């Protein structure tokens, strides 16, 4: 029989967790369930939901999987492939760009500068993401800042078409996701014991060798966390590709958005969205497994 204070404490803990449950349940689990249900339905002629008269017959006919079947058509597979590829490249670019920055701020920069440098990384968040993406349009368009500078410097004869292509989408994505890579990398680099690097040198490893044999493995939790934090949103992005990619770059995010807002095929949109959610959950599950294998909760504290 547990004693009363312990019981009260447990009740208190549940109460403290209540807001989280309300938000998670109301804003995540319930919509997810609705979306799942929707994905099994059919679009009505005018963009609504076709009512199902005989549920048993509907299930037996297999029609409830029609949206999923359609989502695997080559046209769409191509879009998923593009999205995946773009997300992978974005993540890789973010990692390559972020590691030196995070390393500089965490290891090389004088201590008194750390706060300021970190603030510089976070400052873009003060402006709306949409506005920042529009700013890239101003920079990249034909008469934009980038082309003006290039022309004035005589580096190009005619303006380059920098906007409305994959290149522009990539820049926009990398720019948008950069802080989410830098921060976890910084956190794990900050914890890195500098004497381990000296020990590496002492044992005969040069700086490059020390970096790959000690720094990288020991900051792997930050690397993995950063990869997830960048890869997942990149996969579902639609604003950046909408604004910077023009009509040519359709990603899975745009596809879903189109089904709801333009094509008015909510069930089909729901099916694709649910597939995307499953992919993301699988990734998170793999990460959790990785974190468990690392033991000591060393990597869990970075993200989970």
């Amino acid at each position, binding site marked *: 029989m547990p004693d009363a204070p312990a019981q009260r404490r447990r009740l208190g803990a549940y109460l403290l967790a209540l807001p989280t449950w309300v938000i998670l349940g109301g804003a995540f689990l319930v919509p997810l369930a609705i979306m799942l249900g929707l994905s099994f339905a059919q679009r009505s002629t005018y963009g609504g939901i076709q009512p199902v008269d005989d549920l048993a017959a509907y299930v037996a006919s297999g029609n409830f999987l029609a949206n999923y079947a359609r989502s695997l058509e080559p046209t769409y597979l191509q879009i998923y492939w593009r999205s995946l590829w773009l997300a992978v490249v974005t993540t890789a670019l973010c990692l390559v760009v972020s590691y030196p920055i995070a390393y500089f701020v965490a290891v090389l920069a004088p201590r008194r500068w750390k706060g300021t440098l970190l603030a510089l990384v976070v400052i873009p968040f003060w402006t709306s993401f949409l506005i920042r993406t529009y700013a890239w349009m101003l920079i990249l368009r034909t008469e934009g800042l980038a082309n003006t500078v290039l022309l004035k410097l005589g580096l190009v004869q005619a303006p380059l078409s920098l906007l409305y292509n994959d290149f522009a989408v990539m820049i926009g994505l990398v720019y948008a996701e950069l802080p989410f890579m830098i921060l976890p990398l910084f956190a794990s680099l900050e914890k890195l014991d500098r004497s381990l690097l000296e020990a590496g040198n002492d044992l005969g490893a040069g700086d490059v060798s020390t970096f790959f044999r000690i720094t990288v*493995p020991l900051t792997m939790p930050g690397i993995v966390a950063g990869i997830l934090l960048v890869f997942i949103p990149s996969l579902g992005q639609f604003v950046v590709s909408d604004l910077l990619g023009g009509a040519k770059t359709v990603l899975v995010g745009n596809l879903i958005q189109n089904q709801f807002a333009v094509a008015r095929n909510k069930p089909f949109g729901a099916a694709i969205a649910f597939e995307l959610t499953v992919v993301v959950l699988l990734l998170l599950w793999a990460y959790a497994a990785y974190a468990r294998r690392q033991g000591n909760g060393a990597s869990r504290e970075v993200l989970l």
Partner: protein
Amino acid sequence: MSASDPSVEIEGVSKRFGDVVAVDDVTLRIGRGEFFSLLGPSGCGKTTLLRMIGGFEVPSAGAIRVGGADMTAVPAHRRPTNMVFQHYALFPHLTVAENVAFGFRYKEFPAGEHGRRVADAVGLVRLSGLEGRYPAQLSGGQRQRVALARALALEPQVLLLDEPLGALDQKLRKEMQVELKGLQRKLGITFVFVTHDQEEALTMSDRIAVMNGGKVEQVDGAAAVFERPRTDFVAEFMGAGNFFTATVEGVAEGVLSLSLRDGARFEVPAPAGFRGEQSVRFVVRPEKLDLRNRNLAARGIPSVRVTIEDRVYQGVSTVWMVASERGERFVVYEQNERPFEERGRFAVGATAFACWHPRHTVLLDAGAGDG
């Protein structure tokens, strides 16, 4: 054991960090196979000096040679030295065996030997069977041994040890001191050992350099540093801080006649290079002082009249705090050879005479105190 066959040569080495002079014009020769300690309080520059030998700091001035080769500008990973770090710096993502084998590829040891070399190094520090463990699964003492094995496995010419026993508890420390010394004797490698613990340095070292304020105050055999400190600082640091002043009455045939202000006259061997100073300063170690209730000056035994200020019973010994009539404070250690009841010869406040055999008079360098 001598510096005639130098393993590490430090020539006029200085290190400045901004305005701070951490190491100030140090010159040392450390012999091959010698157990050499850098001893001093924190901030004396001993660790910085060690780090310069290891290649982790570049000297602001001077040169460092190891095995005759100039190492001053050689980066750490190309030096024939290996270090046991203060907090071990074991790689947490690697097992004991992987830690030990970390440097093998740079030494270009044949791959076929790696297993044997790991086994040898791990066996040397008596950790066989733990090769597969991660550092987090080891005790402090075991980690210490892994750090040692990892450094020794690369067969360095010189092993550098930066307060390696500092994090261990007292008992383990004592055991490791004996073990380290045994290991050094067995392997014949030069050990350069940094510590702030004088007892630790005395236990293990062949020679000790006592450092203070970035300078080397005295380099001597372990017993000599303890028994015959030459400067105020070394005397104080080695726990011999009973400072006396005597007037020089005469020098003849290498013998110095001294007189204390109390009137006691005694003779000591004149130090080499004595240049006829008017007075000399000297120390007498606390365990060499004796408390008597009679003045023994008449028998040629230097005696100083003191008042007992305090008495601390420490089991094995008793520590007496006494003060001369001029307010100089001395410490006297007495072995508790007699039963407790008979021991309390002097009450606090009583008068006694602090005496010593003249041969325990340790003259300090003239002008000692500024190096």
